[in-house]
């Protein structure tokens, strides 16, 4: 069976510079891929192309076999995406917002209600379902974004910094959630937090200046230096050829 996420020679050039340069990798069911890199390395741009938001300059990506450029709606059906910064409509209530994304995904009636309730339970939003999103703290907003990505129980999850802004307990919860879902899905998470990679990821890709510099399980990465921090610094500052 083909991998759930296939990225093929994906390239994005903006006026004057290349944000993502010939990136290829695939993610199988059961894998949790940690997508690492310094700010501006092309993590978010890669994820946006994978989610079918930014059109690639060259190359393509497939989600469950559906090409994100050729069959965008098909591809997006199998995808749960948490965009950078977890954007949501501030004036909507938590339940209203989740029902909106559910309705777009074609759920109606009792199924919609079940899906919304389940997503809120997974992300512990039950207590604030009727609060307007703009009144919530950063951590809650992030979890609303996460709930939206999980609502339809997609086979592929792409999460851009899912634990950013969460307190340590919430971080723990989200990591537990990701670990629980991992066997069923192909998951890509981007993060700055290196300990997170060791905690939840089965594989890590480090990207710098738009190119993949390393693709290995976290345990292998750690063996390369005294700590993950150290390895990350050496790889992304370009002092070690790989």
């Amino acid at each position, binding site marked *: 069976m083909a991998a759930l996420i296939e990225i093929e020679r994906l390239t994005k050039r903006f006026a004057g510079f290349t944000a993502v340069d010939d990136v290829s990798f695939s993610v199988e069911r059961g894998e949790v891929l940690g997508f690492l890199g310094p700010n501006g390395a092309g993590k978010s741009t890669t994820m*946006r192309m994978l989610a079918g938001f*930014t059109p690639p300059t060259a190359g393509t990506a497939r989600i469950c076999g559906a090409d994100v450029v050729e069959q965008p*709606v098909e591809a*997006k059906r199998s995808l749960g995406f948490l965009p950078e910064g977890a954007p949501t409509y501030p004036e*909507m209530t938590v339940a209203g917002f989740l029902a909106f994304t559910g309705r777009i995904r074609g759920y109606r009636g009792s199924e919609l209600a079940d899906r919304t309730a389940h997503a809120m339970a997974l992300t512990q939003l039950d207590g604030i379902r009727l609060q307007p999103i703009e009144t919530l703290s950063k951590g809650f907003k992030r979890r609303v974004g996460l709930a939206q990505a999980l609502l339809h129980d997609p086979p592929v999850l792409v999460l851009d910094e899912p634990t950013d802004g969460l307190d340590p307990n919430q971080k723990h919860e989200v990591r537990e959630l990701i670990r629980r879902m991992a066997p069923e899905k192909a998951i890509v998470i981007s993060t700055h937090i290196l300990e997170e990679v060791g905690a939840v990821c089965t594989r890590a890709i480090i990207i710098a200046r738009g190119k993949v510099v390393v693709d290995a399980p976290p345990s292998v990465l750690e063996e390369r230096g005294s700590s993950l921090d150290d390895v990350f610094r050496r790889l992304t500052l370009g002092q070690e050829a790989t």
Partner: protein
Amino acid sequence: MRAALTVARRELAGYFATPVATVFIVIFLVLAGALTFTLGNFFGRGQADLVPFFSFIPWLFLFLVPALTMRLWAEERRLGTIELLLTLPLPQWAAVLGKFLAAWAFCGIALALTFPLWITVNILGSPDNGVILSGYVGCLLVAGAYLALGAAVSALTRNQVIAFVIAVALCFLFAAAGSPVVTEFLDTRLPVLAEIARNLSVADRFGGFTRGIIAARDLIWFASFIGFFLFVNAVVLDHRKAD
């Protein structure tokens, strides 16, 4: 289509969840009323019709409609929700159409709230209610034309002030194209352009509706105008969404 209606429903609820709806509707009603009774000389004319009201509508919408449309895409960009909306499984045209329909329905609500004027003329005399209805249809179509144009402009820039100013300028172009000042000037200098200007004029098309004539060619004209700018909107969005 279902996805477009879902987007429209969310958008429309969004207007009423924020002060946008109240401010827009109150200002619209105050201005429409004030212009009708003062400049329009509603009572002094001694005629039971809504001609003074309808004659101000294209000019009032000229400023108010771009105020609605300037935030359509700019706001989504500012909040980053454009990335959420366009990564949900819906075709891009559905998002464009949904936003347009919500704004249009909103204008329809604002227009419907001018009903006291209609009641007034019916108490004071016996107007031809068919003509009044056709006038309202015309108002709605003018709003739709301006909305489609403004929404396309809004997709072009992330700056709301620029979106507003350009949309007002373009709407003015289409509103004024058929006015005597423009056409007489063109008639004497460039007769070819005068004919084109008359054909492009929103105000000219609207004129028929206020006289009670709902002509198929005018309906088709408005439908093509709206359709064309929605198409432009979708194309622009596709190219600039990630900027």
